[in-house]
C-alpha cells in the first residue's frame, strides 16, 4: 500500500461542509447539511442524535456507499488526505474493509446466514493482504481469540445463527479488525443487544481500538454510551450538527437549546418522577422536506426569537467561554441564553399515595411444554421438555403504585404479562386481582368489567393500532366493549375526551394510524388502555421503541394519567434508568426467576443481588458526575430450555461462591420487610458490597454548572 511507503501522519478523516441528499419521487431530500469533522489517529468521535437526524447517512457517505438514490451534493470527505470522491471503484474497494471498516447495528443481519463464520472471516485478509487460505485462517482464529470468543477453531466452522447475538457482534468486530483499519465506523453497534451484553461489547471496542490504534466514529442515540467511549461528540438535529466539542464540555456546559433539551429528557440516577420530572421537548422532529426557515430547531425552542432565528440559515460559532477550543454551537443566541436556568425541569409533584393492595401474586408459575424432535432426544426419552417461563413469582402491588418488572430478553417478563391479561394460564400459584384469582381465568371467561379494569399498553407503536380502522373507531370500540357507554353520541364524546386526556387534537379521531408519528400512536395506545377506567395498567416496554425526547413526553403522560386516576401501573422494562425514575417498587427477573424485589431505593442500593449489581453497572449514564464500578459479565444467557440446575444466574455470576450455586436453588433472604434477594451468599456478606453508582456531591447538577 502506498501509505506504508510514506507514513501519513495527518488527520485520518477530514470532512468539510458535507451535504448529502436523497432523491425520491417527492424530489431532493437533504439528509445531511453542512457537516464538518476532523478525526486524528487514535481519536474517537461520537455522532449522537435521534432517529432521522442523518447520523447513519454520514457513515455511509464516508464509505461512499449511498445506494442508488443518494448522493453527495457538495463538500469533501478526505481519508488520509485523499478525497474519497476522486477514487476509482477499484481504489475504493481496496480501502473498504482494509483501511475503513464498519460495525453494524444488527449483527445477525450483517452476517451471511449460509456461509460459515470462518469463510466470512478469512476472505478479508485473503482479499486485502493476498495471503494464503491457511495464513488467513490462522489470523482469523487469532482475532476470534482477541475478541474473547471461546473455542475459536470450532467457531470457524459454525454458522451465524448458531451463536448468540453478543457473539455475533464479536464476530463482526473481529471481521472489521482483521486488516487493522485506521478508521472504524460503528453504527449503533449495541442497540440490538441486552444491557449486560452491551457492556461487554463496549469494553471490547475500547480495548481493541487502543490495541490496533484505530480511530473511531461512533454513532448512537444513547448519550450515556457516548460518555463511555468517545473523546469528542457531535450532537445532530434534523440533518445538521447543532453542537460539537469535547465530551466534558458538552456534558458539563452545553450551549445549544436542543442539547439542553436532550439532557432534560434523560432520567438520571439521582432524579425521580416526583422531585424532578422529565421535561420533554415540545413538538416533533420536522420531516426533511418540511424544515423551517433559519434554525431547524426554532419551532421547538424555548428561546426562539422571531426575526433572528427564522431568517437565514445558522452557521456554527465558536464557544469561547470554556477552555475547549473545539466547542462550537449552531445557535445565534447562545451567548444571551442564561445556561444555568436553561436546564429544562418539570415542576416537582407530590408523591402519589399508595392505597390498598390491588394485585397479589403468590408463587405464580408458568411452564410451557416444548416438543423436542431431535433424534437424541427421542432416544433418551426426553421428547417433551418443560420451559419454565415463570418460576415462583411472588409480589404485591397497591392502588396508585408503580411496580417495575426488570429483566433482559428471555427473562419471562412478557409471559408474565400474558398470564395477567388472560392470554395464557398460570400453571400453578395464585394471581389475585382485587381478591379474585385470575391466574387460571382465560380472557374469554372474564367479565367486561374485569377486562376493562386490567388493560395493557404495548411496546411497538407501529403494531399497537389496527392500520385499517380510524383512531376514533378503535377507541370507541373499547368504550362500547367495556360497557362504559352505550349511546353512540356519548361514546363519541368519550372518545374526544380521551384524546384531550392524551393531549392530541380532536380531529385525530377520523385519522388512520399511518398518519400519526410513533409517539402519537403510543399516546392513542395509552388512551385505549385507560378507556375503561382500569384499576391496573400493564405497560410492556411502552417507550423502548421511541426517541428520547418523545419517550420523555410519553412517560410523563403515562405517570400523569396514572396519578390522576390512582391506577396501579405495572411497568415492564429492560431500561434501568427509566425504572429507577418511574417505579415505587422493583421486581428483578432473570431466566423466569424472581431474583430480587423491594422498593426502588432498596433494590438500587446495597445489598444487591449479584445480577442486579451487574445490571446497574451495565447501564450507561449520561452524567459525568456519576462514578460507576465496572462489572462485566462473562458468558451467554443460558437457554430457557436447559436452565442451570441451581441458581439461574450461577453460570455468569461474578460472586459465585461454589458448587452450591450450581446445584441448589437459592433461598429468598429478606433484608427488610419486603426486600427479598434470592441468593446463597449470606445477607451479611451482601450488605458489605459497595454501591455501584456514586454521585459526587460537589456538583449536584452538572448540566447547570458554569466554568
Amino acid at each position, binding site marked *: 500500500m502506498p501509505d506504508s511507503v510514506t507514513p501519513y501522519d495527518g488527520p485520518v478523516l477530514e470532512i468539510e461542509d458535507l451535504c448529502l441528499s436523497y432523491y425520491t419521487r417527492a424530489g431532493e431530500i437533504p439528509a445531511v447539511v453542512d457537516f464538518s469533522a476532523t478525526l486524528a489517529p487514535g481519536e474517537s468521535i461520537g455522532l449522537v442524535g435521534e432517529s432521522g437526524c442523518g447520523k447513519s447517512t454520514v457513515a455511509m457517505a464516508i464509505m461512499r*456507499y449511498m445506494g442508488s438514490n443518494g448522493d453527495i451534493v457538495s463538500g469533501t470527505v478526505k481519508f488520509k488526505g485523499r478525497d474519497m470522491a476522486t477514487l476509482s471503484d477499484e481504489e475504493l474497494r*481496496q*480501502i473498504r*474493509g482494509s483501511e475503513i*471498516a464498519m460495525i453494524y447495528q444488527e449483527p445477525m443481519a450483517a452476517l*451471511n446466514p449460509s456461509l460459515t463464520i470462518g469463510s466470512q472471516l478469512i*476472505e478479508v485478509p485473503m482479499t486485502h493482504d493476498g495471503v494464503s487460505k491457511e495464513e488467513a485462517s490462522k489470523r482469523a482464529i487469532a482475532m476470534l481469540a482477541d475478541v474473547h470468543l471461546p473455542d475459536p477453531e470450532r467457531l470457524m466452522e459454525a454458522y451465524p445463527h448458531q451463536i448468540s447475538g453478543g457473539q455475533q457482534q464479536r464476530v463482526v468486530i473481529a*471481521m472489521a479488525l482483521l486488516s487493522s483499519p485506521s478508521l472504524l465506523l460503528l453504527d449503533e453497534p449495541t442497540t440490538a443487544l441486552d444491557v449486560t451484553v452491551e457492556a461487554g461489547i463496549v469494553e471490547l471496542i475500547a480495548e481493541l481500538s487502543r490495541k490496533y490504534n484505530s480511530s473511531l466514529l461512533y454513532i448512537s442515540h444513547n448519550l450515556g454510551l457516548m460518555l463511555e467511549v468517545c473523546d469528542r461528540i457531535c450532537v445532530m438535529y434534523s440533518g445538521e450538527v447543532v453542537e460539537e466539542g469535547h465530551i466534558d464540555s458538552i456534558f458539563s456546559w452545553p450551549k445549544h437549546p436542543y442539547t439542553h433539551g436532550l439532557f432534560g429528557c434523560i432520567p438520571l440516577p439521582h432524579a425521580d418522577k416526583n422531585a424532578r420530572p422529565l421535561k420533554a421537548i415540545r413538538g416533533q422532529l420536522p420531516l426533511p422536506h418540511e424544515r423551517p426557515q433559519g434554525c431547524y430547531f426554532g419551532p421547538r425552542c424555548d428561546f426562539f426569537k422571531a426575526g433572528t432565528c427564522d431568517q437565514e440559515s445558522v452557521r456554527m460559532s465558536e464557544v469561547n467561554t470554556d477552555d475547549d477550543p473545539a466547542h462550537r454551537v449552531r445557535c445565534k443566541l447562545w451567548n444571551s441564553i442564561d445556561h444555568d436556568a436553561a436546564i429544562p425541569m418539570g415542576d416537582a409533584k407530590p408523591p402519589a399515595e399508595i392505597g390498598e393492595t390491588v394485585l397479589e401474586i403468590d408463587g405464580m408459575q408458568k411452564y410451557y411444554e416444548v416438543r423436542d424432535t431431535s*433424534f437424541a432426544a427421542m432416544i433418551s426419552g426426553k421428547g417433551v421438555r418443560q420451559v419454565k417461563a415463570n418460576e415462583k413469582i411472588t409480589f404485591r402491588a397497591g392502588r396508585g403504585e408503580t411496580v417495575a418488572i426488570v429483566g433482559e430478553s428471555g427473562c419471562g417478563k412478557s409471559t408474565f404479562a400474558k398470564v395477567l391479561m388472560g392470554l395464557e394460564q398460570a400453571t400453578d400459584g395464585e394471581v389475585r386481582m382485587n381478591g379474585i384469582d385470575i391466574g387460571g381465568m382465560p380472557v374469554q371467561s372474564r367479565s367486561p368489567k374485569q377486562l376493562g379494569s386490567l388493560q395493557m399498553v404495548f411496546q411497538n407503536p407501529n403494531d399497537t393500532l389496527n392500520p385499517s380502522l380510524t383512531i376514533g373507531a378503535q377507541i370507541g370500540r373499547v368504550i362500547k366493549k367495556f360497557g362504559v357507554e352505550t349511546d353512540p353520541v356519548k361514546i363519541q364524546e368519550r372518545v374526544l375526551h380521551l384524546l384531550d386526556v392524551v393531549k392530541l387534537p380532536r380531529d385525530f379521531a377520523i385519522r388512520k394510524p399511518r398518519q400519526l408519528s410513533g409517539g402519537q400512536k403510543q399516546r392513542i395506545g395509552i388512551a385505549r388502555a385507560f378507556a375503561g377506567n382500569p384499576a391496573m395498567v400493564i405497560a410492556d416496554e411502552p417507550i423502548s421503541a421511541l426517541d428520547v425526547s418523545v419517550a420523555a413526553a410519553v412517560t410523563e403522560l403515562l405517570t400523569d394519567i396514572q396519578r390522576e386516576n390512582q391506577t396501579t401501573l405495572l411497568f415492564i422494562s429492560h431500561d434501568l434508568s427509566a425504572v429507577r425514575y418511574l417505579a415505587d417498587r422493583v421486581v428483578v427477573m432473570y431466566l423466569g426467576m424472581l431474583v430480587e424485589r423491594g422498593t426502588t431505593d432498596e433494590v438500587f442500593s446495597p445489598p444487591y443481588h449479584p445480577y442486579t449489581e451487574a445490571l446497574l453497572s451495565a447501564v450507561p449514564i449520561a452524567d459525568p458526575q456519576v462514578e460507576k464500578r465496572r462489572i462485566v459479565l462473562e458468558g451467554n444467557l443460558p437457554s430457557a430450555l436447559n436452565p442451570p440446575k441451581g441458581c439461574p444466574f450461577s453460570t455468569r455470576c461474578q460472586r459465585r461462591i461454589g458448587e452450591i450455586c450450581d446445584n441448589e436453588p437459592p433461598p429468598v433472604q429478606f433484608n427488610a420487610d419486603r426486600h427479598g434477594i434470592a441468593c446463597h451468599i449470606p445477607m451479611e456478606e451482601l450488605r458489605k458490597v459497595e454501591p455501584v453508582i456514586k454521585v459526587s456531591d460537589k456538583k449536584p447538577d452538572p448540566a447547570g454548572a458554569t466554568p
Partner: protein
Amino acid sequence: MLIMISKRIGFMVLTMLVVSILLFLLLEYSPGNVAVKVLGPYSSEEARQLWLERHGYFEPLWWRYGSWLGNFINGEFGDSVRFRVPVSEVLWPRLWNTAILGFWTFAIMIPLSLILGVLAGMREGSRLDRIISVGSIITTSVPEFASTVLLSAIFVFGLKWLPGTSSMTSGFEVKQMILPVMVLIIYDFGYVARMTRASMAEVMTTHYIRTAILKGLPYRQVIMKHALRNALIAPFTVIMLQINWLLSGVIVVEFFFAYKGFGALLLEASLNQDIFVIEACAMVAVFVAVASQTIADIGYTYLNPRIRFT
C-alpha cells in the same frame, strides 16, 4: 434430519393413500357405472352382472378397495377399455416418452431461467431487469394452447421448417421434439425466472450483502459467493414444483402435437371414459408430484443451514 426425511416420506405415503381412496370412491363407488363404462352403453344387463361378479364387484366396499389397492401396488391396473390390453402395457411406454419431453424441457429451461433471473435481480430497476421482467410476464401470459398455435403457424405453415405433429411414427426424431419442448419452455421459464429474480433482488438488499461490499470484496465475489448461495435456495423449491406443473403442461402440448405421451393418454382416457387408465394415470401423476415435492422439501432443508443445524 433423518426424522425429517422419514416424516416427509411417511406423509407422502399417507397422501397417496388418501388420493387412492378418493379416486376409488369417485370412480368405482357404484359398480353399475363401472360396468357400463367397461362394457359400453349397449351391453346387455346380463353381461354386465356377469362381468361384475367375475371381477369381485359384489364384495363389500372395503374389501373391494383393499384388493383394488393390492392390485395397484403390484402394478395390475386392469385392462384398458379402449386399447383392449392391460393398462401397464400402454402406460409405461407413454410415461417414458413424456419423461424424454420433460427432460429436454428442464435441461434447457432451468439454466436459461436461472441465468436470466439472476441477471435481472442483480441490479434491480436496471434496463436489463426491466427487459427481462416484462419479457417474462409476456411469455407467461400467452397460454400454452395459444403458443402452440402461434408457433406452428410460424414454423410449420409459415417457414415450413418443422413438422406439425410429433407422433414419432417412424422412430424417434429430434425435429419432432423441437416444437413441444419450445412451447413448454416459453410458458414456464418466465415463472421460474421471475421467482429467481425476486429472490435475487431480495438478497441484494440484505445487510449481509452490504457487509460483503463494504468488506471490499470484488463485486464478482460478492455475487458468486455471498448472493447466489442464498438467492438460489428459493428457486430450487420452485423448480421442483415445476415437475408437478409440467404434468399439466404436457397434456395440452401432447394433445396438440399428437405426441404419444402420458398427458395425451390421460386426456384420451377421460374423453372415452376409459376408467382404469384414468385411475392409473392419476395415481402415477400424483405419485410423481408428491415425490418431487418431498425431494424439494428435503433439499430445501439441506440447502438452508439455518434449518439444517438447529
